[in-house]
């Protein structure tokens, strides 16, 4: 659809209809408070055009508040919000050119699917031909063309979610805001919807998406970058794979992927191929160094699925422990071992036989699969 398809006499708001160019989102020290209680501490964050940025964190971390500030539903007590380089902090939500999908979809129950999808365009005064074309396109993108005459109550949860996305896409938003859009779905449908959203973004690579979720697997699957929030503050931000492999702090390591964290002391800071020697109890290990001198206390971060119970090629680090729990779950086996005062979780995909609880166990991992993070409390 081109701008020429719009009717004559367009208003500024109507121009938003044709806006579809990728837009950046910028938080400049944005802080939000409710009746004096700060729920979002000064947040500075940039979302690149066409990027999916997932904001994750536990309840009360401020992720939804940050999203609502972009949408214009809450007004920051300080700081500025930019969309596509334009300061939108003082603009009402209907002038920001965004679209949002919320947890319960909020499809208008008194409107049919096609009317729901057309809502934003009608609200912006788009021409009838444009509306028909856009509704058809949007429903086609989410595979819901044949459902256009149905009411929302006649659709399943997954179908409602698709319609909600179509409604958001129909207005060609500058930025798509997704507020826990899959959390009302059961696990199986959620997995397939994550794949659909990934496909959707592949089809619409210019679409900037701010995705709020508490589900780390959604964030890991979809996001180009992840921002982790805790207690109203940005705790970590980075490219998804980097953040997963090299979490900058304890909270990021535990929240994103539930990493094992073992206290270690750097024994030898002479880097060999980027690796330094650390001591974890009786075990001497080689891991990627972080530049800290010998004697520094650190937390060794290693993911449960990077640990094996058999010495394989390249898995040169060994930690000794005692097996406390064994949970067989079909294709996966979850094990918990005691190492000193710490508990280490292992996720094994194949085991020749289930090990005995209470027995000694050796766990192996590759030096490249572990990292060191500061031991500071708080984050």
């Amino acid at each position, binding site marked *: 659809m081109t701008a020429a398809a719009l009717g004559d006499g367009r208003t500024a*708001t109507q121009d*938003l209809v044709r806006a579809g160019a990728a837009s950046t989102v910028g938080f400049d020290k944005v802080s939000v408070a409710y009746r004096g209680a700060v729920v979002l501490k000064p947040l500075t964050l940039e979302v690149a055009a066409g990027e999916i940025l997932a904001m994750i964190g536990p309840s009360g971390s401020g992720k939804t508040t940050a999203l609502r500030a972009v*949408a*214009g*539903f809450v007004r920051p007590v300080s700081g500025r919000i930019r969309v596509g380089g334009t300061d939108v902090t003082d603009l*009402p*939500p*209907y002038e*920001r*050119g*965004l*679209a*949002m*999908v*919320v*947890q*319960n979809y*909020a*499809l*208008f*129950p*008194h409107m049919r699917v096609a009317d729901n999808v057309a*809502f*934003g365009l009608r*609200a*912006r005064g788009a021409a009838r031909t444009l509306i028909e074309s856009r509704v058809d396109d949007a429903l086609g993108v989410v595979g819901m063309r044949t459902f256009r005459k149905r*009411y*929302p*109550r006649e659709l399943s949860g997954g179908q409602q979610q698709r319609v909600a996305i179509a*409604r*958001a896409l129909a*207005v060609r938003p500058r930025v798509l*805001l997704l507020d826990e859009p899959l959390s009302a779905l059961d696990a199986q449908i959620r997995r397939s919807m994550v794949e659909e959203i990934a496909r959707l973004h592949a089809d619409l690579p210019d679409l900037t998406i701010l995705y709020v979720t508490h589900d780390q697997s959604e964030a890991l699957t979809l996001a180009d970058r992840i921002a982790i929030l805790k207690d109203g503050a940005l705790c970590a931000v980075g490219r998804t794979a980097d953040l997963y492999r090299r979490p900058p702090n304890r909270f990021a390591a535990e929240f994103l992927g539930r990493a094992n964290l073992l206290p270690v002391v750097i024994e030898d800071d002479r880097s060999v191929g980027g690796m330094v020697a650390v001591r974890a109890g009786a075990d001497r290990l080689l891991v990627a160094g972080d530049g800290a001198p010998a004697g520094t206390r650190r937390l060794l971060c290693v993911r449960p699925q990077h640990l094996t119970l058999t010495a394989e090629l390249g898995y040169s680090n060994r930690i000794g422990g005692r097996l406390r729990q064994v949970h067989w779950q079909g294709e996966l086996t979850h094990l918990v071992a005691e190492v000193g005062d710490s508990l280490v979780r292992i996720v094994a995909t194949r085991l020749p036989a289930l090990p005995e609880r209470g027995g000694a166990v050796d766990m192996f991992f590759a030096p490249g699969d572990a990292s060191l993070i500061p031991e500071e409390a708080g984050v």
Partner: protein
Amino acid sequence: MLVWSRSGRFLVWTVAALLIGVVFLAPLAVILAASFAAQWNGALPSGFTLEHYRAAGTGASGDAVFASLATGVAASVLALLSGTWAALALRAQGPAWSRTLGILFFVPSAVPSVSVGLGLLVAFSQRPLLLNGTTAIVILAHFVLISAFSFGNVSAGLARLPPDFEEVASCLGARPAYRLAKVTLPLIAPYVVAAFGLSFALSMGELGATVMVYPPGWVTLPVAIFGLTDRGDVFSGAALTMILVGVTLTLLIGLERLPIAAAGRRG
């Protein structure tokens, strides 16, 4: 199920039937019988006639039906508009303001209707606010008495409306007026219709304030019924009462179907 045993349920149903029969149905049955009675000298009426209804359809009684309907509709529409406006406006305020102003809206319903009538009579008997002796003061009295119920119903509907609908609409580009017309009001339509129905029913039965302010030529049904029974014409009063009940029930049943139709399209 609160009562599990068969005998217990039978007992509860019997008590409920007796209560409903004695408290609700018996008075109505007596009025219904009286409205068709030619004479009533014993325990039961001794003759059947439609004369009271024939008389009710003409002359002063017919005017009373019109006056009641016109007053009820006008006052209910005004109450609905102001109640909806107030409920929407107060929702946008903080909870403390909303609660305080909301209580103020209910004050007239706590004042005896006769006192409301008296107050209006005194307040609007001097220029430039001279409404004494006009139809407007009757409508105003009804409006004052019923507006709290319109406000309460619409407020309840708005309180139950998840904010997501309006927020999503707003984010999609809907300005406040468009959002109100296309999203908010349709979603609270059952409450709006219920508010109108309740206001109308209350207005149709209002007597206390009306007898204080009604002008000649604008006698509502309750005033006419009161006048007839006061003069001893109980049978004509009963016929008018049944007409009042019939008109009110017909409108309420008709209104009840509207939210059902709207709700049928809901998820």
